[in-house]
């Protein structure tokens, strides 16, 4: 998968977008790229995946894998942002110690999002990083965030902030500099939502759709003949082994259902997003830890060439 310097990753809740982000970053770092993952979440997950303490700051922190991680949420990011407009540290400190002011920043919708995105643009321009991955929130909130530069540009026509917002909108619109990766499961509902999300993005946000990662693909390719043979064998032991027999038949139904549903999902993605790379990641049946899951997925992402679509 060819990714530009700035990659936004999102996906419906429960599709494994943070794990995929971590695996992509791990592969980038291991191929020698200076790699940073930015989280925009009050409840960080990268810290857990990379074994760092939870109270990660605005400044990128090195992990033992070479990936750097930073969290662009909360008042420290606001502090850094305010400092670009108000040189006096005393004034910004006073402001951030004021309960009414922090209440306003935290509760006025979009304020913290805008500040976090502004920080991403800063990070990108400082030349320290070859690859920056932004672990966006789940699709609903991510859409809000990705639209923000354009909506703010519309709302704020002039001034320094307008220039800063436009700077990010320009980066996002440049296919050589930024792309969006959408993580989905091959199941019916996530695929439907992913297709809706992608079409909204195409309509409303000026950013290249880099790839759709189809996570946790379950494959059990049995033909009709094999399916009925398994059923026959299980039924033959219905009396001697009633419970095992019932479980084998349940497993057969599950396996067939999963396989067929996932294949249907892949076909829908292929038909409706013909020019977007699809990268499939097999379902992981056994993991020692979350960290082990990242390793397994990183390994399958390394092996896998995009299935169809334009490179």
């Amino acid at each position, binding site marked *: 998968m060819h990714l530009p310097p700035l990659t936004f990753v999102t996906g419906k809740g429960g599709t494994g977008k943070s794990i995929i982000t971590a695996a992509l970053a791990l592969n980038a770092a291991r191929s020698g790229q200076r790699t940073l993952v930015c989280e925009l979440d009050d409840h960080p997950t990268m810290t857990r995946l990379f074994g760092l303490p939870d109270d990660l700051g605005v400044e990128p922190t090195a992990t033992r894998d070479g990936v750097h991680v930073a969290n662009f949420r909360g008042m420290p990011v606001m502090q850094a942002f305010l400092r670009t407009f*108000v040189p006096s540290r005393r*004034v910004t400190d006073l402001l951030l110690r004021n309960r009414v002011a922090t209440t306003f920043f935290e509760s006025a919708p979009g304020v913290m999002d805008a500040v976090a995105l502004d920080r991403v643009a800063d990070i990108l321009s400082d030349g320290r990083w070859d690859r920056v991955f932004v672990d966006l929130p789940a699709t609903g909130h991510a859409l809000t965030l990705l639209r923000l530069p354009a909506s703010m540009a519309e709302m704020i026509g002039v001034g320094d902030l307008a220039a800063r917002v436009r700077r990010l909108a320009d980066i996002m619109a440049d296919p050589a500099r930024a792309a969006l990766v959408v993580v989905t499961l091959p199941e*019916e509902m996530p695929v439907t939502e992913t297709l809706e999300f992608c079409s909204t993005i195409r309509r409303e946000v000026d950013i290249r759709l880099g790839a759709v990662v189809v996570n946790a693909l379950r494959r059990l390719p049995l033909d009709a003949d094999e399916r009925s043979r398994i059923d026959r064998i299980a039924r033959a032991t219905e009396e001697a082994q009633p419970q*095992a027999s019932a*479980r084998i038949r349940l497993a057969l139904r599950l396996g067939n259902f999963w396989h067929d549903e996932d294949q249907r999902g892949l076909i829908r993605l292929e038909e409706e997003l013909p020019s977007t790379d699809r990268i499939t990641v097999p379902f992981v049946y056994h993991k020692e830890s979350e960290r082990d899951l990242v390793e397994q997925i990183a390994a399958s992402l390394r092996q896998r060439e995009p299935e169809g679509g334009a490179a």
Partner: protein
Amino acid sequence: MSNGETGFVADVLDTARLIVCIGTGGVGKTTTSAALALRAAQRGRRVLVMTIDPAKRLANAMGLEALGNEPEAVRMPPDTKGSLDAMMLDARRTFDDLIRRTAGDEAPSILENRVYRLMVDRLSGTQEYMALERLYDLYSSGRWDLVVLDTPPSTNALEFFDAPRRTANMFDERVMRWFLPEHRSDAGLLRRVFNPGAVVLRLLAIVGGEQFVSELSEFFGALRIVRASFEERGHEVRRILGDRDTRYVLIASPDTRRVDEALLLRRKLAEERRTIDLYILNRSHHLFEADDLERVTRDSGTTEPMPGAFSRWYPRLVQLAERDRAGVQRLRSGLSPRDVIRLVPAFDRPIHSLTELQGIGGFLLDEPLPTGNDPGQPA
């Protein structure tokens, strides 16, 4: 399965006035909410299920074209004693309606204010605010005995409970005052005392331009009028959420990460003196055993070989089963013995109609699991 637990779930469905379903996304929260609502209706109650998720397939399974902002009756089997209505929250419509109802003559200018349009349409948090606003209306209408609320899919369900407080904060009198004209006139930077409002306004003017500040000012000025209503609502909603007839159902899966999230949520809620009444673990694969394949092939008496793909796959399914049994144990050992866990096995078919939804209710309520032991019970 002990009758105590079955009786408990039935009791929740029979007596609660509000059931709040919480949990992270991707664990079948919406489907479970619908299954609980269906069962309660079949037990004779007038039930409304309110979802945030635009799940078209679920709407179809309930025999509806799509779900809208107004409750719509679900066609139930003929012998049903109660009734079921379903709806999907439209945050924007709800917010607009609220403004129209409370702002009187000011309503048109608020609805046209650019800051409002952008805020309601594109900025985050609105869903949670509006879910609670709509909930209040429907809950207090008297049309339903029970409302089942499927909360917005957020990474952290705590955000949902925090919504009334954040809503109230947003319309904090002190914040709003910054933007009112009489205050702006003396908004010189750092007058005698430190005035954060003046600093914020000045900053906004520098970074956003005067035009932006005047629109913001207009927006807050107008919203001041609806604030009283917001505050009253916030207060009422907090009361409903804390009512003893409001029950909390946590929906997760037996995956370690989900279980840990569930336990964390339990602790956080306990700090706010909220308790979770029922834990539902979806997508469970706990049934499969390591020697199933061997037992079946050994005793089948046929010479037909088991297809290789299946023989290789089954042990992996057993690994999932072991993971899930461990996950259930992990949850069990983090709870008090009185807490109730129900397991719902992974679906082996799509949810096409009320029949499948009813089947899920069976796992939650009164039908024993088809095979295997039940690790949902304390050892």
